[in-house]
């Protein structure tokens, strides 16, 4: 409700702008100095599934670089009774460990950087996340809403969800053929060469937070996670969402809430002032640099659902890249195959058959036929048809 109120106040600010104000793109003269703070992100799974700690550095605000991994650090977890687990750097900046941890103990994460700086987290208490009671969806006039229901308890009152979305999409023009430069002929695609069915996944998922203590029995009923707008390609054939639910403590909840507020709500007339990002990682050197990051521990729980287009039909869809896709009118004759298809910019689509002889192919651009240009034709491991 508070959120709703806040939103209401925000819309008031926005409205005022439309009275006579305006919003222009602007690059303030922010210092280009690189403060290069350490960023720690991670959740340590107690159930032995394998946990990741990601170490990176902040970038100057105007840098083009996106992710600056911090390599070569030694990362370890120690329990309150002295046991220690060492993480391995699986890829640059990503440190992993697979182990089961006793739920009843407190743990601290330690990081020793190559430059000699040392960091240690505050003691963490693992929290066991209650199961997702329901992961469902609702078709309404505005599209499809995916929601989650769960029931917290005294230990687990704050919830954090993240999710991965995957879906099948089809290119604007579907082709089963390709030009084989070796044979200089058009051939039928084998199963692993298909380019008319691809999977795509969401790159920028949002983090969703909810405090269950405000509700009776800590029950969260049908909390909206994702909204799929009308005409979205996500539901053109089959869609899948995997939701991970984590119970977190209040500090972690506040941390994420500040991250969210700082990124989403800043700059309006009635927007709150940006807040300090705190975390539970501290430098051992009292004069050491700040560190951004909140590491927590516990047992997460996940659930996956699939939605087929039949479940929500009718579902007209629209993909901007494919808006003007169509089959060429002209036929590329056999003799012209090499000249037309060798570069790969056009692909054969439909054979033109006279009586029983294929005299050529009608073609379309690669952008319209090759779905791998914006997705992958390799079926994800988890995918169920």
């Amino acid at each position, binding site marked *: 409700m508070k959120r709703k109120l806040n939103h209401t106040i925000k819309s008031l600010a926005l409205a005022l702008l*439309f009275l006579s104000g305006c919003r222009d793109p602007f690059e303030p003269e922010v210092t280009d100095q690189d403060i290069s703070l350490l960023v720690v992100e991670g959740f340590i799974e107690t159930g032995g599934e394998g946990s990741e700690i990601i170490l990176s550095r902040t970038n100057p605000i105007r840098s083009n670089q996106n992710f600056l991994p911090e390599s070569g650090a030694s990362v370890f977890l120690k329990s309150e009774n002295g046991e220690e687990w060492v993480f391995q750097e699986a890829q640059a900046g990503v440190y992993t460990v697979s182990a089961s941890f006793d739920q009843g103990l407190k743990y601290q994460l330690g990081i020793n950087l190559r430059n000699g700086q040392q960091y240690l987290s505050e003691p963490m208490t693992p929290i066991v996340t209650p199961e997702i009671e329901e992961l469902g969806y609702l078709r309404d006039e505005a599209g499809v809403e995916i929601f989650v229901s769960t029931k917290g308890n005294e230990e687990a009152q704050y919830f954090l969800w993240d999710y991965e979305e995957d879906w099948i999409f089809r290119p604007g023009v579907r082709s089963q053929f390709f030009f084989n430069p070796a044979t200089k002929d058009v051939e039928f695609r084998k199963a692993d060469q298909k380019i008319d069915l691809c999977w795509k996944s969401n790159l920028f998922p949002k983090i969703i937070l909810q405090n269950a203590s405000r509700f009776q029995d800590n029950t969260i009923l049908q909390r909206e996670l994702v909204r799929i707008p009308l005409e979205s390609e996500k539901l053109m054939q089959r869609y899948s969402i995997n939701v991970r639910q984590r119970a977190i403590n209040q500090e972690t909840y506040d941390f994420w809430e500040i991250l969210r507020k700082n990124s989403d709500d800043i700059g309006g007339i009635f927007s709150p002032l940006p807040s300090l*990002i705190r975390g539970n990682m501290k430098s051992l050197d009292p004069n050491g640099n700040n560190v951004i990051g909140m590491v927590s521990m516990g047992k997460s729980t996940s659930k996956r659902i699939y939605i087929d287009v039949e479940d929500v039909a009718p579902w007209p869809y629209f993909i901007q890249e494919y808006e003007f896709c169509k089959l060429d009118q002209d036929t590329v004759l056999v003799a012209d195959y090499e000249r037309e298809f060798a570069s790969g910019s056009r692909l054969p689509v439909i054979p033109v058959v006279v009586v029983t002889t294929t005299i050529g192919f009608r073609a379309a651009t690669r952008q319209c036929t090759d779905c791998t240009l914006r997705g992958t034709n390799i079926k994800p491991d988890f995918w169920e048809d």
Partner: protein
Amino acid sequence: MNRLIILLVFCVICFIPKSWAQETKRAEERISGLFPGLSFPRFAQQIESQTSYKFYFSQEDVADLIVNISAKDNTIRQVLDGVFDGKDLKYSIDDKNRIFITKGKALETSLPLDFFTQVSELEKDSILRQSDINRAFSRNKLYVIGKADNSGKTEAVLRGKVTGLETGNPVFGAVIFEKVNYTRAIANQDGQFEIKLPIGRHTIFIQNLGGFVEQRQISLQGDGVLDVAIEENIISLSEVTISSEKMTNISRPEMGVQKLNMETMRQIPAILGEVDIIRSILTLPGVQTVGEASVGFNVRGGAADQNLILFNHATIYNPSHLFGLFSAFNPDLVESVDLYKAGIPVQYGGRLSSVLDVHAKYGNDEKITVRGGIGLLTSRISVEGPVGEKTTFALGARSTYSDWLLDILEENTDFKDGRANFYDLNLNVSHKLNDKNIIRLNTYGSNDSFGFDRDTTFMYQNRSINLGWTHYFSDRLEGEFVAGRDHYQFDIEGRDNPSNSYDFGFGIKQDFFKANFSYEYDLRHTFTFGLNTIRYRLNPGFIEPAGPESIVIPEEVNPEQALETSIYIGDNFEVTDEFSINFGMRYAVYNYLGPNTVREYKPGLPISPPNLVGETTFNNGQTIKTYSGPEFRISARYSLNNISSIKAGYNTNRQFIHLLTNNAAIAPTDIWKLSDPNIRPQWGDQVSIGYYRNIKVDKYEFSVEAYHRNMKNLIDFRSGASLILNNAIEQSVLRTDGRAYGAEFLLRKNTGKLNGWISYTYSRSLLRTAQDEMAEKINGGEWYPNNFDQPHNAVLVGNYALSKRFSTSINANYSTGRPITLPVAKFNYGGSERVYFSNRNAYRIPDYFRIDFSINIEGNHKVKKLAHSSWSIGVYNLLGRRNPYSVYFTPVNGILQGYQLSIFAEPIPFITYNFRI
């Protein structure tokens, strides 16, 4: 030719001995004859032939002049006066009977008397002003005449001489009288008079026939002498009033006081054509705002909630309509506005930074007058006048029809259902029971309601009523008793869908009683003393379901109650004519009252849930916590001479009610909070010093004031603080110290066709998390700029009267951009790009600059007509500069994009029609 003459004249003047230049009184030659329709050169020729006079003039100047005059034994001056009557030509005659004709200004044929005494500009100014000042001064100054002896005489003789103020000549026939026994005397040929009066105090009136009445306060103790200089010409009363007001700048003991009357405010170009009190005071040095659409204003580095806004005794919690687009005062009902930035008089208290005292009208006692105005967005009407002999009233209403503005936004479907309404109403009545008792009733109400979609409506209201009784106990003791109630509330109605419809509300109600006394002990001491008490009742927020289907859980923050009582005494002590001091003390007692539940925390540890020790519940009316303490108000003035003075002051203030706002600007949905056991009252002090100087006989007024302020127990917010429906606000705030300092320069031109002022202010306002605040240290416990810290601020307000009916005004405003916290680094977290912010307020938004322009056209000046009318046409933000209100970053598809946000980004034209019947 012209130049030759001047050169010639100059040479003549330079070389004639001093004695020649003196006025000589010799018998003038007489002229007789008929001069019909002659050109001036021909007329000059004829005169030259008749007399010894010689004419010097430029052919150009007299080209159009036709002389038509008949003379019989007239002096040359009489003849020339007739010839030049109504023309822009002046003449002067020197002692050699040479007549110089010039355009515009008469040629000086003699040197000024002080030509060889080398009087400096400053002295001249001082001398010129002396006469002016003496006049105003002497009117009220007490002259002690004669020496008291014990001879038992009951009467004494007052002798004196009446002279002209400008000429110094004796005034023959001036009447000297006193009004109690109607004793009178008449000045003789030498201006001398003699009048016999009883020993004691008198007001003596001196009047030149048909001239202005001068007055003197005397305390006659024995025979003595009183010389009086009086104005010889008829002058209007109003001019004198103005000049005595001008003097107050240098002579009043308080400092940091700004008075604005409606006349001045009317000349400042107003947005949307309405005279706006809040916008007008923003043109004064030391008054700033964070942005154009903000409700509040900041005085000398103080937060917006530190201003006490009074409207005829009523405290106005939200002084604006439509998020600050308009101020909530109907300009036709306002008489004048006093803003106290320092030297806050001892009868005011409860806020740290300033007092804005808006005086509303009670109506004139002559005739019913109707005023009104019709603008693009608002209209207003007011009626004032007498009812019977003893009662006057002023009634005003104002409303908007701005819906059409929102209608034109229809293309933007988000706001097609937008609507905005406001109105305000005033009724003030004054009733004179008798000479000693006056009763005044003040009522005020304002209402705002707006929504930008079908689902949500915002509303806020001010309601005030108070009744005052002024009683004159004696000539010296005056008492004023006021009791009343002020009410402010806001509501949000959410009607998104039936299941989550809600009503959210906040309200503040205060009942107050004031007793103010003023006692003129003698001419040197004036005491003020009294008692103020306020009973606060706060409803800090509630939410409840609306409609039967709503599943919203009702929630309410505990209501709060408190009693603030203060007593005060002050003395305005005129130690000598040069030195006066105004000092006083105020003692405030604040009781936080039950029913309520308060939380206790472990002392010395952060106020946060882990350190919660326990809760105590108090019953209705039980005192939960008492805060008390003195406040000091001292200011002193020392006159260096007639035209300049220095002043210094020190004052302290306490504030028990705080506005909780986590934004840069005040939002109409911000809530107030009373001091409680965990949130201490704010305390502040201010030291200020100033120099005041009037230049060119009050034509210009210059002042510079410097100040330094300390503030304690201000409120800042912890990271991620949520203020809505929060029962434990103390867990979200940080105790903060404040510091502000600056200097204000003001040069003002009061008279002439071109008038206005230029001001420049240098000011800083800084905050620091209190040393003993453990919860969080903003910027590592270092000083950081306040949200409204704008070091440089310059304002130009200029009015130029092209004619009596046509005038133009310009207002230019520059200030340093306000501080802002900007992202300085970015990083990936939780799958999205996030930003890391700089230290609090480490950067600034671009500077602010705006010019407004307006033209005022008065209707004709015919005596008989339906209504006096005037038009006001102008443009707000003439340059259309897109002054950024804010700068921010937000990820768009995961990539950070910077934006600047401006309000009133285009020139906004306006037109308003005003009338008076």
